[in-house]
């Protein structure tokens, strides 16, 4: 939490409440406030939207990064804000992907859209999380035990799905779970499609359409999460992270709060999984459930900065980009090597996160540019 009074003093003051929309999305739980930040934000968004046309960025490469943004957000709110490390975000990612695919295969021909598939891809992991979370949190499991349990769950799912090759047993409607080869028939896994009847917009995962769609969705989700995190619920998350016992003495059922954020995190991961399945029209166990899938999310968020939503997402996109650059220009072994090295270096040098460090520097830069009169005036409040 970045409520540091000694840094950019008056903006953080309890007495200063920004106007209108900003009031909702700014607050002590998220970095970045005031005109410098939002201007920069707007510029970045503009550049991002122009990138495919003017900078020659190829969407089919970049689309993957946008999805990772959702995944990073999911871990950030769970680990960074609520203090619950889960090494099994991939479990929800994978469940979302599979459910999207299964519903899509079965219903796409009939409905022509993927509304239900998306809904299922988000709801199924949420329900799954509610079930698992209820068991874990009401048994008062903490810390490393939750982390390992979620990893175990993800591995269990992977191992299970790997042996679902038998088409007689493992089929849901027209969808075959397909074992190691993934959900089949893969050609029937739809891309994201909205609309009814004649007016349907299908968004191909390898083209610009998906890029704009996913980017827009990411921005919407990002702003919505900022609102949530800066509301009373966000305060509670941080309180539960910092001192759950003390928070309990104020009358809050910590287990319910943990369960709520766990489910939200699962929903986001499920959304990411659904989008990814729609993007590549494929989902297989090694892709979505493996240990490396789990660890990559942790790396992005740990390196970017887990305690802040913006830095976590930026970390994910940057590291994915870096990884892609390394695998295409060098060789894959070096890519993994460098990622591992970056993780270690970042944990040592900038344990709060590289982007958090950058953000603090920028904040100080802009904080200093306030006029002395403004500071004096605010001090009198």
């Amino acid at each position, binding site marked *: 939490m970045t*409520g540091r009074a000694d840094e950019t003093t008056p903006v953080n003051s*309890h*007495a200063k409440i920004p106007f209108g929309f900003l009031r909702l999305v700014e607050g*002590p739980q998220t970095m970045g406030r005031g005109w410098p930040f939002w201007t920069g934000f707007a510029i970045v968004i503009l550049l991002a939207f122009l990138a495919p046309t003017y900078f020659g960025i190829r969407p089919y490469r970049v689309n993957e990064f946008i999805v990772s943004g959702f995944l990073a957000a999911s871990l950030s709110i769970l680990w960074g804000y609520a203090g619950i490390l889960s090494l099994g975000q991939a479990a929800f990612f994978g469940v979302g992907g599979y459910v999207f695919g299964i519903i899509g295969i079965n219903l796409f021909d009939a409905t022509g859209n993927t509304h239900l598939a998306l809904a299922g891809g988000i709801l199924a992991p949420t329900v799954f999380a509610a079930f698992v979370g209820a068991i874990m949190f009401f048994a008062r499991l903490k810390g490393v035990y939750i982390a390992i349990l979620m990893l175990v769950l993800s591995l269990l799912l992977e191992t299970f799905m790997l042996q679902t090759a038998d088409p007689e047993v493992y089929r849901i409607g027209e969808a075959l779970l397909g074992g190691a080869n993934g959900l089949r028939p893969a050609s029937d896994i739809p891309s994201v499609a909205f609309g009814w009847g004649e007016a349907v917009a299908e968004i191909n995962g390898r083209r610009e359409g998906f890029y704009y769609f996913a980017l827009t969705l990411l921005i919407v989700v990002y702003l919505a999460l900022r609102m949530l995190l800066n509301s009373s619920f966000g305060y509670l998350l941080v309180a539960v992270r910092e001192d759950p*016992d*003390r928070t309990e003495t*104020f009358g809050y059922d*910590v287990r319910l709060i943990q369960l709520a954020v766990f489910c939200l995190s699962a929903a986001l991961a499920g959304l990411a999984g659904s989008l990814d399945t729609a993007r590549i029209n494929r989902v297989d166990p090694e892709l979505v459930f493996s240990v490396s899938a789990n660890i990559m999310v942790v790396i992005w968020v740990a390196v970017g900065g887990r305690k802040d939503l913006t830095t976590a997402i930026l970390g994910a996109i940057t590291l994915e980009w870096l990884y892609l650059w390394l695998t295409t220009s060098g060789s894959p072994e070096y890519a993994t090597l460098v990622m591992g090295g970056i993780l270690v270096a970042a944990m040592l040098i900038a344990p709060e996160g590289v982007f958090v460090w950058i953000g603090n520097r920028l904040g100080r830069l802009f904080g200093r540019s306030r006029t002395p009169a403004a500071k004096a005036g605010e001090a009198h409040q």
Partner: protein
Amino acid sequence: MTAPAAMTAAHGRPILEIRNVTKDFGGVRATDDLSLAIAPGELHCMIGPNGAGKSTFFKLLMGTIRPTKGEILFNGEDITRLPPHQRARRGLGIKFQNMQVYSELTVFQNFFIPLRRNHKPSAMPGLVADILDRIHLSGLEDELVRNLSHGQQQWLSIGMSIALEPKVLLLDEPAAGMGRDETQSTAEIIKSLNAEGMTIIVIEHDMEFIRNLSSRTSVLHLGALFAQGSYEEIETDDDVRKIYLGKV
């Protein structure tokens, strides 16, 4: 030795009643058939040598641990099976021995959590300012809590518990680690809160502090209620002195 007397509540039903509560940890009996009744609006002190079971008693009251035997009643309701957050909602506030503040947040943000139970965020600046005035921390809303002195953090923790507007406030060592002046101020804070009608139970070691409060006092020894009476009676009781091994 002053025989533990059953409390006949002068003002009607006791607000807090502990009936024959026993707590065993394996082979150790931390609380031994303890019975106590607290009247509404009372200021009550719990003293006793180290290991007497005072903090365990508070944990039993708050629900952090469950008794092996016995019941606890709050306003006539049996709360023995309730978890801590339910007890807090019914009006039981506590400041534990390790004072528990959110050290990475500002003073104002610390108050957000307890205040939010009963108030909207818009009302908070005023409420916080009021409480800060009472606990000698005026004007420190934006100070990062880990930059506060130990004594200030103690007051903050007490303030946070007050912010919940509890019916009964449990304070475990509110003056721990404080100098003379701070201890004095703390006693005054407690007395003024009690004067407004808050029922307060205080655990303390510092005899000066207890003397200052001059209230009904219970002495715990080996988990059992050893003596009970007004502070003057306890202070002059030979047996009480003995269990403190000559210390006063």
